[in-house]
């Protein structure tokens, strides 16, 4: 890794950039909380993998934690992907549909 | 009876080709007015196909709605906006 920043540093630098100047504003609290939420939620989802196999779940959990540290401000990705652009939403719908059909047919 | 179903098969083959070509051609036009007319023509092919599928009432409805009403609404929209697709 090139960067030696901790997760906090990364998030803070990014939010300060986002707000533009003063690091403490109305929006920053929301972004910070949202970032933490996303991290915790992704870890929880990864831990749900224990249903299938516990060792694989542990490996997955560690991998997900590493990925989260690397991609640090997750919230920017979340916000960009849940944009209200019609074509982007339809793209995600098609992906979803394909995944659902694949998973259910495979589960048979 | 057998000749009837055989002739229906011929109708069906022609109409499947017509529907496919019509659908693709309607979406490839740059001129929106022409696209609306071609989608109407595709609906006529569909109406004949319904006839071959032993549903004459739907065939009649589809022929009227698909060739007059739907292109009419779309053409109204085109006249109120613009005729060609912008780049």
């Amino acid at each position: 890794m090139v960067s030696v920043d901790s997760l906090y540093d990364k998030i803070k630098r990014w939010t300060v950039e986002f707000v533009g100047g003063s690091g403490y504003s109305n929006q920053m609290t929301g972004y910070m909380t949202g970032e933490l939420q996303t991290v915790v939620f992704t870890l929880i989802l990864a831990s749900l993998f224990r249903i299938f196999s516990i060792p694989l779940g542990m490996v997955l959990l560690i991998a997900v934690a590493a990925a989260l540290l690397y991609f640090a401000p997750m919230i920017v990705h979340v916000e960009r992907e849940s944009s209200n652009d019609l074509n982007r939403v339809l793209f995600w719908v098609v992906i979803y549909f394909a995944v659902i059909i694949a998973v259910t047919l495979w589960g048979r | 009876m057998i000749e009837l179903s055989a002739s229906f098969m011929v109708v069906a083959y022609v109409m499947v080709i017509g529907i496919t070509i019509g659908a693709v051609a309607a979406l490839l036009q740059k001129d929106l007015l022409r696209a609306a007319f071609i989608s109407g023509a595709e609906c006529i092919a569909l109406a004949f196909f319904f006839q071959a599928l032993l549903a004459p009432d739907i065939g009649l409805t589809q022929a009227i709605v698909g060739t007059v009403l739907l292109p009419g609404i779309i053409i109204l929209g085109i006249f109120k906006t613009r005729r060609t697709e912008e780049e």
Partner: protein
Amino acid sequence: MTESISNLWSIALLVTIPIFATIIVNLLFNRNRAIKYISLISALSLVVITILSPYGFQWFTGQPALNPNTLTFTFDASIPAWRMALEFYFGPLQQVLIFVMALILVLVIGIATNGLTKNQGPYIGMIFLLFMSAAIIIMVNDLYHLWIAVEIGSLVVVGVVAASGEGIGQKAALKYALFSALSGAGLAIALALILGLTGYSNISDAIRYIQTTNLAGMSSILYVAFGFFILSWIYAGGLVPIHPLKSEVYGAAFPHGTAMLQAQSKLMLVAIGLVMLRLFGSLPFAREVMLSISVLTMMLGVVMALLQTDLRWILAYLIVSHSGLVTVGISLGTYDALVGGLFQAVNDVLYMSVLLLGCEAVYYFGKGTSTKTAVGIAKKAPWLALAMVLGTFAASGIPPFNGFQSKIILIQSALKVGLPEVAVVILILSVTTFIALFRGIYSIFLKPAETTPLAVSGSVPSEAQEDDKETPIPRGLYLSLAILVVITLILGVYPDLVIRFLTPVAQAVSIPWYP
């Protein structure tokens, strides 16, 4: 329980009164007083019909089954016989959900007829049609009417959103209309597939056929139908890939319109969810897919709500994320979880209506609902601030309010099926709901109104003009807020008032997790 074989009178009335009200109100167009009285009387009659009606069926064709024990004819789904009917059913679940919807209808019409001055007739008509589509979809027991109600509902939602008259509302309406066209076609394909597979349109018949017949190679068709059903489910409730579009719809409509929209959306979620649980609940991976969608919805919705700076948009995203709670209950599918999910649907409609009507009241101060422009309203309207804070408590599940009761049932049922992660996600959701809502409410109501630097440099007359825009809040709005707050409090203290209506459905539909 004796069951009459003749059609129930109330079902037809519940569907036709809104239609007639729509037609009359539409013809009256701009005669506001007449519209007000006619629509209020129709809405109140709907409430009364829902309370007084017995339980029963309405069917259009087909045959009743012969009950072997009592030798009477019945349409009861548990009697093994083919019915082949297009049928509506009015039972306890339908009664409580339609009652809540009708209550919101009365309050919303009371507010809309006061606030709106232009094109009132068509707008009120569309609100009635919203009620009608929701009532049909919750009562229906055949795929044909299910699909029709979904289509009507989507068109009416588009109309209500476009009626807000702003650019963002029209954009949201067009996006939602395009997507609803897609998903409506998907639901029609699912209908065609199930009809082709089983030959029955009645849902009970189709389920019986699927259970008793060996589908062999044809069962993959059932999975494709499941996929299309999921498509219309996520569209009805704004679940995860659609959450930007649906929250835009909620945010762009008038807040009182949004109160109606979210109630309709919850009813659609419950109805389609129960149909999916009954039809596909025993398929492997089906409920896991539904559960994953609902968990993702809860988290993404609440995270997006944290990022907003406008109370309207905060509420829009929160509504989407809280519909995830309803679907968690339905997709877990056990008895407890179903009771929790259905109860959550009722509570959700009520406390979100409190917040939305409060949001509507903020508009009367003439500075919008953005947290940057509207500040210090608590001094001018202390009771409004109190109602909003109580609504926040209910939404985030703080004990004496109704949100707590349904969330605790959901958490316990998630723990009982061995999924503590889901319970943790529900907990995080309620805490974050509190943070997201209180961020908005603090800066709108409690933050002191400071003299902004712009006001110093700007001219004084503009400020005076801004004060002129401030209009007194109508009493009807305060009355509706008070009614809703009291109901949330009563349901929080006595949850059994609603839960006893939900248990029969939960017993009939529930499937154990990991059968």
